[in-house]
């Protein structure tokens, strides 16, 4: 079969500006992406260490003491226990906020009368810091896990609701018209068009809400319970001014917050929602 066969003509689509994905040129300085943040971290640790040394502070720890503090917490088994306790509360409070906020937000975005009715009340509740709710939470739920879960729920339900509402309201009308043209109404219209069209913006709201939830769990644990990373910080200070453990707790909060954000960011890479983010 070595005879020359007529060459198959290229598919016509190739002829109008072919949609070649932007060529991914190799960045010759890719190593900088890792090196630069590391450099900043090293400079920061050095500045911290030097500042404590010069000030000759007896209380504020140097970076190495904080590292030792983290090791001590691990050896005592406290670190894992407190992290699990904090994550447990965030999972419940945030999970409930997603379950309530997304459907409620979509509902408000679709029915403009409902939006008119509920929005003023939402805008009054929204600016009340979750911290201000702590006394109320303790009054209602006592020193139990429910109190911080309630506070985390309050903190994250508003950003999620508002983003879901805005997502439906800002939906491109052409998608709705096309869907109606194909005869979609009711639940199929919602499931096949409104929800997928709103999803990128909802995910953005979820990401913001998770950041807020992580801020709030620490604050709530300082006051309302006897475990978790927030409790660790306040307890280390009260029981013997162990500032090495205070800062160790802060470091863990920052690192876990980073991991949580990276996890939610991965949602933005799904093919079904990537269209909603610029340059991705």
């Amino acid at each position: 079969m070595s005879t020359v066969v007529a060459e198959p003509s290229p598919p016509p689509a190739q002829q109008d500006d072919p949609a070649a994905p932007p060529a991914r040129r190799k960045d010759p300085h890719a190593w900088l992406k890792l090196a630069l943040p590391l450099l900043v971290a090293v400079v920061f640790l050095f500045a911290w260490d030097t500042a404590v040394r010069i000030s000759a502070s007896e209380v504020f720890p140097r970076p190495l003491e904080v590292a030792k503090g983290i090791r001590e917490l691990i050896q005592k088994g406290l670190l894992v226990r407190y992290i699990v306790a904090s994550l447990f509360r965030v999972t419940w409070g945030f999970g409930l906020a997603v379950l309530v906020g997304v459907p409620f937000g979509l509902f408000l975005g679709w029915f403009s009368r409902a939006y008119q009715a509920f929005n003023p009340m939402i805008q009054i509740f929204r600016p009340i810091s979750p911290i201000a709710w702590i006394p109320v939470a303790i009054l209602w739920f006592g020193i139990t896990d429910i109190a911080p879960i309630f506070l985390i729920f309050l903190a994250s339900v508003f950003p999620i609701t508002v983003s879901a509402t805005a997502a439906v309201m800002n939906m491109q009308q052409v998608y709705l018209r096309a869907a109606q043209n194909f005869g979609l109404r009711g639940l199929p219209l919602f499931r096949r068009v409104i929800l997928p069209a709103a999803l990128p913006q909802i995910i953005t709201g979820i990401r913001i809400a998770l950041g807020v939830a992580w801020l709030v769990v620490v604050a709530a644990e300082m006051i309302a319970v006897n475990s978790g990373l927030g409790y660790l910080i306040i307890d280390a200070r009260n029981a013997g001014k162990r500032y090495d453990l205070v800062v160790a707790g802060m470091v863990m909060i920052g690192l876990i917050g980073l991991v949580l954000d990276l996890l939610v960011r991965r949602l933005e890479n799904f093919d079904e929602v990537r269209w909603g983010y610029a340059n991705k």
Partner: protein
Amino acid sequence: MSSVVHIRDLWMSFPGKESGQQIHVLEHIDLEVTPGEFVCIVGPSGCGKSTLLNIIGGFLTQTRGEALVEGQPVHGPDPRRIFVFQENGVFPWLTVRENIGFGLLAKPEEEREKTVAHYTEMVGLNGFENAYPRELSGGMRQRVEIARALAANPDIIYMDEPFGALDFITRLKMRADLVRIWQAEKKTILFVTHDIEEAVQLADRVIIMSRRPATIQKVVPVNLPRPRDLDSAGYLQTRDEIFQSMGMSVRIGF
């Protein structure tokens, strides 16, 4: 042959900025379209030609007069008549295959796959079935939307400046492909454009609308064989006739 689209003394106005003020967009429109006909509606920008198409498509309701499609007054959009949008209504969260099959979910899977494959081939998107719209060029996205419309097997296709956002070469090619597809599928097509050359290349009949408030100024039949030769005397003559009736001299440009 009886007409498939029948517009009788249709008027349209929108409320203006000040209360009580009315902006008159369409006045006394009469229009008949016969089955299988390719009709282009041209007119100056903002004259109301898209408004007319949106009324016929069921997305707007006229102020006065009658819009009958297949003998029935228009009440909202209908899957038997698919609209192709200027701003591209392809769903970005679905692949090319899923978009083209969007109107076929009630059909058995085997038939659906066959239909999708057929129209993917017809618009020349083989090999791109699993691509997402964001990975395609503007011309290819418009092909997806046309294939999605055809796959639903409508009687009529409404097209509102579907090639307006495309570059010149792509536009020429899309026109040629649309004529080829129309000849194969024998659908009625109502096509709105502000591009007179486009109208003459495509249409059996060109409807010329005036400035706002728009009336139908003139109807020009285009009895040229297809595929059309853009250098032929007949093509140039028809084109110039339309230019002139829109108050433009071809030589000077306006």
